[in-house]
């Protein structure tokens, strides 16, 4: 059984936010406008988290860390959901079933990575964006929590194609929109359970670290720090 995960090389990442844009287009994330954004109500399943304070004038260092849902192997959000709307499936993807969510927001509080978003309003897209939504992803209604699904619909489409051709799923056939869009090649996505996969090898490199590792959430999105 595959275990899907991603490695993000911070040494390669140029913080261009191509992954953020790709995610928003792929997953039908609506623009919220300046007023709502100012209230912290943006929907950014893939978010750039800024870290500053390093370095001194005239060369201060501003670091930006791309943060999707980290799809923890020990997800705190799943434990607190009172209705079973969020769960970890057998391939390690932390899913969110919008139609089952009651909007209590326990999960948004429990997630230490702030990777979950509550829908404060009915999503709206200005024309012509409204004509170009992804038909493979649902429009989430007001009052539910949503999050990154590791583009699970892409896995299903790739698997359908493989089954139609009567062959196993090939390596690299299922890639998330963010990893596909990254122009710097900083995001590598794949099967963590396969020791020969690139993502698995990178995840075991000396540069690898997990975000807030001491919490014991065991994320499957792993970062690579600077260095050789």
């Amino acid at each position, binding site marked *: 059984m595959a275990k899907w995960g991603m490695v993000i090389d911070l040494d390669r990442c140029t913080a261009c936010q191509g992954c953020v844009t790709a995610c928003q287009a792929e997953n039908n994330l609506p623009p919220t406008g300046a007023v709502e954004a100012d209230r912290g109500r943006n929907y950014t399943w893939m978010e750039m988290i800024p870290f500053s304070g390093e370095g001194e004038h005239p060369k201060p260092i501003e670091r930006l860390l791309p943060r999707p849902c980290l799809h923890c192997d020990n997800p705190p959000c799943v434990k607190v959901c009172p209705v079973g709307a969020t769960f970890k*499936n057998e391939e390690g993807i932390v899913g969110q079933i919008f139609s089952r969510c009651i909007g209590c927001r326990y999960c948004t509080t429990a997630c230490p990575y702030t990777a979950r978003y509550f829908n404060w309003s009915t999503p709206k897209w200005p024309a012509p964006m409204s004509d170009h939504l992804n038909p493979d992803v*649902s429009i989430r209604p007001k009052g539910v929590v949503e999050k990154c699904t590791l583009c699970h619909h892409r896995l299903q489409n790739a698997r359908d194609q493989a089954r*139609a051709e009567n062959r196993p799923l090939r390596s690299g056939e299922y890639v998330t929109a963010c990893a596909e869009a990254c122009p710097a090649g900083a995001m590598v996505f794949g099967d963590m359970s396969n020791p020969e996969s690139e993502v698995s090898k990178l995840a075991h490199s000396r540069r690898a670290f997990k975000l807030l590792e001491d919490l014991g959430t065991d994320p499957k999105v792993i970062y690579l720090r600077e260095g050789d």
Partner: protein
Amino acid sequence: MRPFFTVLLIVIVLGALVTLVKALVPGGVPVDQPIAFNHALHLGDAGMECGQCHTDAATSRFAGLPGKEVCLDCHDIDEEEGSHPEKDKLFAYADSDDEIPWERVALTAPDVFFSHRRHVTAGGLDCLHCHPDQPLLTRPPATTGLVMAMTDCIACHEERSHTVDCLTCHR
């Protein structure tokens, strides 16, 4: 009686009435199809297969509704015009630039993603497995309606030891 309790009583009675009417009247939104297509005739006497008209079932998420050119592959306007009022409706579309505006009747909830391709090609299911009444219909269904309930899907998946992961259908 206090006004609050009067209003509450009216709300309860109205709610009960709505529930009763919904239970007694078959569900779905009324549908008026542009042509009263006879499935029984085409699948029975004419000996056709579902895939001849619903051409995308094996390759796409949606089975597809036939365009007029599919009908005109078999029906000849010169020989059959005037022979049946429903055929004349088809020939009227054939003479115009308009496509036949079929209405979808098998709808799923907005967050449910059912793939015909996955079930027909990978699963090897026959159309009648999920649409058993279709060959008996002499007229189009009068209302929309969910053909399947989630319990039906799960029962079939469990019977065949297929996944019942929520993400398989819900997104």
